[in-house]
């Protein structure tokens, strides 16, 4: 489960790569890839196992300071939970 104290990291099978053609980040894993919007890419770049979800949210708030904190929190947690469910992000402790 992803919580505020989790230190999420990309699963061993998943790797981020910038795609020159489409000018966006891709998350690559066996036989598949996900095209990431800039926010998703920013979140996943911080999924190194060092940062807590809390810290990731703080970092995003620096960029998206016009958004209410609760909305950003909700979105980050929902996104990471979805990625964890797909086995692409590990919750970490």
């Amino acid at each position, binding site marked *: 489960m992803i919580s505020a104290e989790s230190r999420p990291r990309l*699963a*061993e*099978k998943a*790797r981020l*790569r910038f*795609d*020159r*053609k489409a000018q966006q980040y*891709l998350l*690559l*894993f*066996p*036989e598949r*890839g996900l095209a990431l919007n800039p926010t998703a890419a920013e979140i996943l770049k911080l999924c190194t196992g060092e940062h807590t979800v809390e810290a990731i949210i703080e970092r995003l708030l620096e960029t998206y300071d016009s958004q209410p904190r609760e909305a950003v929190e909700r979105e980050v947690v929902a996104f990471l939970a979805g990625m*964890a*469910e*797909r*086995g692409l992000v590990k919750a970490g402790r």
Partner: protein
Amino acid sequence: MSSEVRPYTLVAELTYKCPLRCVYCSNPLDYGRHADELDTGTWLRVFQEAEDLGVVQLNLTGGEPLIRNDLEPLIEEAHRLDLYTNLITGGIPLTVERLTRFRALGLDNVQLSIQDVGAGASDRIAGLRSFDRKLEVARWVKNLGFPLTINVVLHRDNLDRVADVIALAEDLSADRLELANAQYVGWALQNRAALLPTREQLERARAIAAAARARLRGTMEILFVTPDYYSEFPKACMDGWGRRFVVVSPDGLVLPCHAAHTLPGLEFESVRQRALGDIWRDSPGFNAFRGEAWMPEPCRSCDRRAIDFGGCRCQAFHLTGKAAATDPACRLSPDHGLIEAARAQALEAVGRAMPLEYRARTVSLRG
């Protein structure tokens, strides 16, 4: 073609040689005619050209890619090009030392084939004593920190053991399990009478896989590839002809799928003569079934034409003799009776042992 058409995946078929002789091998029946393999330098050039074209995923496959003694420089270059590199292998011949080198050179994923859950049944399909060694390879893969995909081709004789297959994959700590029902082209079509399951078998296995998928969500991804012989509509073969995948055969032919060179009347070009990108964009073989202009009815006016792209060209040809026919797997195809007849045959064959035709030996292993 519109500028958005770019391949995402290069399927590098490094060799058709293989110590295994699986009775559903997807290599062409005449694989011996493509024995003049590309050298290391040419593959390195192809990888670079593929990356220039937009490829981000590389499948190193065959035959058995481990037969090539130049996998090390190929993996090293793929890693330098930031390609997500997947070694698709039967695990033989391999040493833990070589696998350790692959890890250091940046290989991303290992996909290991296992034919069944026990040595007897597995080795019978593979035509080689190999099962125990494969389990050992799977453990090396995990111990070295690689993600592990286990691929099991499903057919009449192992579908009823799908729960055991899942348990084995869990035991091996696989990250992904591909339960891939055999696709009946190539060798599998030759052996269809012995391999095609009944609908009842298939539905039971599908339910077991679905329950396991829910139970293992987030831990082990389980993919269940339905055989198109039992689906209403055809599969979107290769995500559509010349749309996402580019395949290079061991002798350098650039293909939209691994069996396209079995289709008569199509001209495919070699990376020995032209750059990969030029072939991808304008070779006649690549453009033959791109888009919708080639489609016959009922595909042409079907609202699923952008979902399944008319199905598999190779299946259409090998069953009807016409590469541009609607895939007979589709219930709307005028040739769908061919599929229904095969299903009826599968029902009649229940409980009967059928002979299997094997690939010839292409590799002999010492020890």
